[in-house]
Structures are given as C-alpha cells and as structure tokens.
C-alpha cells in the first residue's frame, strides 16, 4: 500500500473542501472496497478523508412520504430498518443478498454506490485495463468475460457494476444528494448517477472529485410485491451473475431493474410496458442492442428465466 496522509473530517462540507484541497484525495467510509484496492495499489490516494465521524447515519422520513438515508448508514442497518423492510422490501432483500454479515456491518450507503467493478482484469495489475489505466487497452475483450456486461459496454470496457443495493435503488427511483467544497448541493436521480463507459471507462459517475454524497432519498413507497432474485455461482457470498429487482402491482404492471449485466443498474421504463406479455417480451426490450460475448451470452437466457420465476411468484 502506498503511503498517504489522513484526516478526520468534521462536517460534510469540510470533507468536500478537504477533497478539493488535496490532489489525489479520497473519502473513506467503510473502507471495504477502497482498502482492498489500495492494498493492490489499484487505488493510490495521497490523502484519505475519514468521513465516519460525520453522523449521516440516520434514516429519516421525508415530507413527501419517503425516506432520506444518510450516506453513512451501514448496509446492515438499512436492511434491518422496519420501514425499509415493510415499504421497500426490494432494498432490504438486495442488501442482504450482498457480501457477508461482517462486510455489511461496515459497508455504507454512499460507499456501496461507488464500489468499483469486479472485472478480473481490473484486479490483475499485470493486465491491460482502460478503467485502471486509461488508454492501456481492455484485456477482457477476447479474454475471459463470463462475469462481464452483455449490454451498455463499449470497445473500451465491458465491466459490470457489482452493487446489489444500487439495483434495488434504481427500481425505487432513488435520488442521490451531494454537497461540494463551496457548499453547493444537488440531487441526482440514480438513473443519471452512473455513467456508461464509452471512451472513458475510468469515469464512472457524474460526481465531481470534491463532491460528497450526503444521503440517498427514496420517494414514497410504491406498494406492490417486492422481489430481489440474485443468481450466482454459490448460494451465498458471491457477486451476481444476474439479478432481478422487481416491484409488481396486483394488476401485473410494475418495475424491473437488472444487475450483473451492465455497467450500471439496467432499467428501461419502456420495457416495463411489456410486463403483461411475460418475461420474454420484457427481456427482449431490455436487451435491445446487447452485444454479449460467447462467454456471457448465457446471461440473456438466465435473466429471462429469473424474471419469469419472479413473475410466476408474483402471480402466486
């Protein structure tokens, strides 16, 4: 691990200001992703801003009938919150489908959204990777791509976003709230938060370097039945090959987002109109323009079958 200086921030804006003041600074929350990558020298921050002392660890009701989740709320606490379990079951389910009990106790809401890809070549510093080292090439193209994206990728990068939590938040139309060094705040719909790789796969979100996430806001509850079905190589403690987050209403309409298939939570509101026509109709809309590799084309079939299972369960 490279040496770095360290400070404990006193307020969200102070944290943002510290990030603006130090070239190469990064925030550290749970540390479960950042430290892992620092040990491998994939991340080499010169300065760490510890944001754990900021509070931001409560979940509050909003005037609109939703919930404001502080950026430092731990994944365990978010999954266990009675309101989340009752009104946003898809989110509870997605959280407990991710990582392990120990990791969820540390992992935060903000950090989870910003966790980096699990592409094996991103982790292997002997291989070329445009995300890790812009311009170096992409070893996954023509390489082992079983886990990687079938849609939304580019020539430059076909990595997936690994978060389970983010898939559920996308279905719920969550909004990310931030503050920067000047104290300016903004609210970014999760749909616009993560970027597709294009020619710049190292730029993964719309956040500025000094922009700090303060909260994630959930709009008022949708009702309906909530599902998060995750398909993976082991029964537990593995990243998704494919996951389906769904909220389904009694009349069969609803919302669907897919994980494990794209560089960001994959949702297409137009595809949801096809729900009464069954899983195949929805999946063919969702995967319009998909460019799977030989290794990962199975994901399209797997997604269809997983969605079919969800729709069948919803019908009871």
């Amino acid at each position, binding site marked *: 691990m490279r*040496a770095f*200086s*360290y400070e*404990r921030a*006193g307020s969200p804006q102070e944290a943002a200001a510290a990030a603006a003041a130090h070239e190469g600074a990064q925030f550290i929350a749970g540390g479960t992703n950042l*430290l892992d990558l620092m040990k491998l020298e994939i991340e080499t921050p010169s300065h760490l801003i510890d944001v754990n002392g900021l509070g931001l660890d409560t979940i509050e009701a909003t005037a609109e009938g939703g919930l404001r989740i502080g950026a430092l709320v731990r994944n365990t606490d978010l999954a266990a919150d009675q309101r989340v379990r009752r009104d946003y079951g898809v989110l509870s389910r997605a959280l407990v489908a991710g990582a392990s*009990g*120990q990791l969820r*106790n540390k992992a935060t809401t903000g950090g989870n959204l910003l966790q980096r890809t699990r592409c094996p070549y991103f982790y292997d510093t002997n291989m070329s990777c445009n995300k890790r080292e812009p311009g170096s090439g992409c070893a996954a193209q023509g390489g082992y791509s079983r886990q990687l994206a079938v849609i939304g990728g580019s020539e430059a990068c076909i990595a997936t976003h690994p978060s389970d939590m983010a898939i559920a938040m996308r279905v719920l139309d969550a909004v990310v709230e931030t503050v920067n060094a000047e104290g300016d705040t903004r609210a970014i719909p999760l749909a616009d938060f993560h970027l597709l790789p294009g020619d710049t796969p190292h730029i993964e979100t719309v956040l500025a370097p000094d922009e700090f996430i303060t909260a994630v806001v959930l709009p008022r509850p949708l009702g309906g039945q909530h599902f998060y079905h995750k398909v993976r190589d082991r029964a537990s*403690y593995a990243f998704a090959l494919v996951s389906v987050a769904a909220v389904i209403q009694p009349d069969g309409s609803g919302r669907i987002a897919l994980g494990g298939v794209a560089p960001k939570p994959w949702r297409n509101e137009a595809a949801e109109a096809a729900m009464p026509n069954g899983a195949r109709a929805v999946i063919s809309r969702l995967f319009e323009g998909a460019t799977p590799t030989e290794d990962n084309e199975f994901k399209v079939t797997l997604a269809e079958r997983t969605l079919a299972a969800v729709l069948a369960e919803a019908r009871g």
Partner: protein
Amino acid sequence: MSKLSDFEITRRNLLIGSATTTASLALPKFSFAQEKNTGQASSVTTIPNSAMTEVGFTVNGEARKLTADNRLTLLDALRESLQLSGTKKGCDHGQCGACTVMVNGRRINSCLSLAVMHEGDEITTIEGLGTPEGLDPMQVAFIEHDGYQCGYCTPGQICSAKATLEEIRAGIPSHVTEDITGEIQITSAEIRERMSGNLCRCGAYANILDAIEHVAEDKA
C-alpha cells in the same frame, strides 16, 4: 509550520519506500506528533500531511494508544503492535473471515479497516471472549463438537458465531429469511447463511454448525 512540514516530508519519503504496513513500534519514534496537537482547539489528533496518526481505542477492555502508520490495518495493529495474535490473517482482502473481531458490539473484518479509523472504539478479540480457565460457551461448544481441524479459522468463526446469534435475536434479516417483516427464527439455514463470510479450508462446517446450534438451544 514550514519547519514542521520539511520534517514531515522527510518522514513521509522514508515511509513511502516501505511497502509493508508497520506499526509505529517498529519504526523510529517521533515524539513531536504529540506536541503538535497540544493547544489545538480540535480534539482529533490529526497530523496533516503526515503518514502517521495517533489513535486510542480499547481492546478487550484495556485502553491502548498507538502512533500508527496510516496504512496499518486494525488486524496488523492487533497482531503485530499489540501482540494479540489470536485474530488470524487469511486472505487480507475481506474474503475469508479469519480476521473477524467485534467493534462496538458488531463483527467486522479487521483486515479491511485502518487502525487509525478506530478512535474511541471498543474492540473485542478472541482473547477477550474467554480465558483458558473461563471459556465462553461458544468456545466450549466448538471444543465439544470438534468445530475445527487445524484451528486457523476458529477465532474468526467463534466471533462470527456469537455475532450471528445476536444478529438473529436483534431481528436483522438475512438472505434466507422468508418473511422479512416477521420475527426471525434461529434455524440451521439462517446460521449457515450468516456464517458464509467465514471460510474453513479444513471443511469443519458441519461441526461448526452443530456447535452454534448447541449454544442457540442452550440459550433458548
């Protein structure tokens, strides 16, 4: 201040050369770290532009203070700086659970946490759970049910096992909880799922499960 930063830079360069995360105990001592903070309004002991930070926490009830290399993980602080080698290092990447300890009553992977991030925390390691004369019931159960072979994963398994039962009793749902709005039962499926962050290369899983179920029944 400028004099100080010159010194800081020298020290930082010194540390940059070393790839390992070492505790201050193994490095030359810089006494100015304490001086610098005297008279500062802020209560946090941060040394800007420095590669070392002072931190204080309790381990198994005992107050400990370190001037730690910022890179020092909590795991290495426990094992190397504080000589508490009960907590094990398996993968060092959050994947195996051998390093599991309790921080403020919750289990975490100590390999994926920096020591300097634990100011004021209460840490409990396997050494704090029981003594050879006064074992914790979970330790007794692991012995009685042969919940290990080589024993390397065992301290992490035992910390996690205790936390698993507490988490179920606290009503924290898991991936296998059927009704996440209802009360959660202690079942073998719940225990297995919640223990999935602790790997055992010897494959003692069946006996580990027996040990945990035994403790759960005793307390029920």
